[in-house]
């Protein structure tokens, strides 16, 4: 098993994660419920239905958002 770590950005902050994980795994590792967030990877929307299939890659830049109060 590959034990290397990947260097990524999540919501503007640097982070290291184990290689071989999916975006859904990443969300769970961050304590987030993947069904309640939307994910943008390198400026492209990742459809929620594919979060468990798309692998996190070194250098990826993620924006993970949800709904908050607003006018």
């Amino acid at each position: 098993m590959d034990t290397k770590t990947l260097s990524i950005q999540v919501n503007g902050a640097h982070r290291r994660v184990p290689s071989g994980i999916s975006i859904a795994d990443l969300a769970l590792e961050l304590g987030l419920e993947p069904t309640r967030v939307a994910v943008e990877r390198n400026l492209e929307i990742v459809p929620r239905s594919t979060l468990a299939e798309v692998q996190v890659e070194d250098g990826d830049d993620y924006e993970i958002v949800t709904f908050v109060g607003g006018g």
Partner: protein
Amino acid sequence: MTDSWTVAGQTFTSRLIVGTGKYKSFEQNAAAVEASGAEIVTVAVRRVNISDPGQPLLTDFIDPKKITYLPNTAGCFTAADAVRTLRLAREAGGWELVKLEVLGEAKTLYPDMRETLKATETLVAEGFKPMVYCVDDPIAAKQLEEAGAVAIMPLGAPIGSGLGIQNRVTIRLIVEGAGVPVLVDAGVGTASDAAVAMELGCDGVLMNTAIAEAKDPVTMARAMKLAVESGRLAYLAGRMGQRRYADPSSPLAGLI
């Protein structure tokens, strides 16, 4: 008689849309939404809190299955940012009905109409149904409608100002010229302002601060519900004409 209105194929009974910002707590926010009778709430799209992911979420208090979430683009100053935000919103919620606002500057939060029109065109091409915050300009309103906006939402006064409707003439002209719903968005301060918007023939009113910053938001939410309803009824009833001088209500005949 049921008095409903329809936007992008969705029919609503309440003509009041309320925001979910600036409340002291989610509980107070939920109670105000309940008291307002609103069927649509606006929400913002923001980064998740990664440092404290266990924090309660808006969706825990206001159920998106019962209340329609209308994602906004508050804080966006370019068409590109607004479109990016709403693409994320669509993925997060799965809804095409969105509120577009592209701001021109932080001081007045006045809309940038050039960017707003550009963003409207892009969103429509991507299948979104944008309800569009705009200046109270009948020509700009027409251009947005031609670009595919599903509702026109002119400001009554600057966002969060509570100054009430500053230009009744332009709001009325927008209403008369529009083939899609018109909602006053921004500037309402108190119940009479909401009633004025409805008396001018608007299909609805959108507000946040007027309720959230009232001393008692839940009571103000109810006041706004009643004001929107009574303003709508007055519009449907057709108000009396205005005269320059007095006209007695009691008969002149038979005076002793």
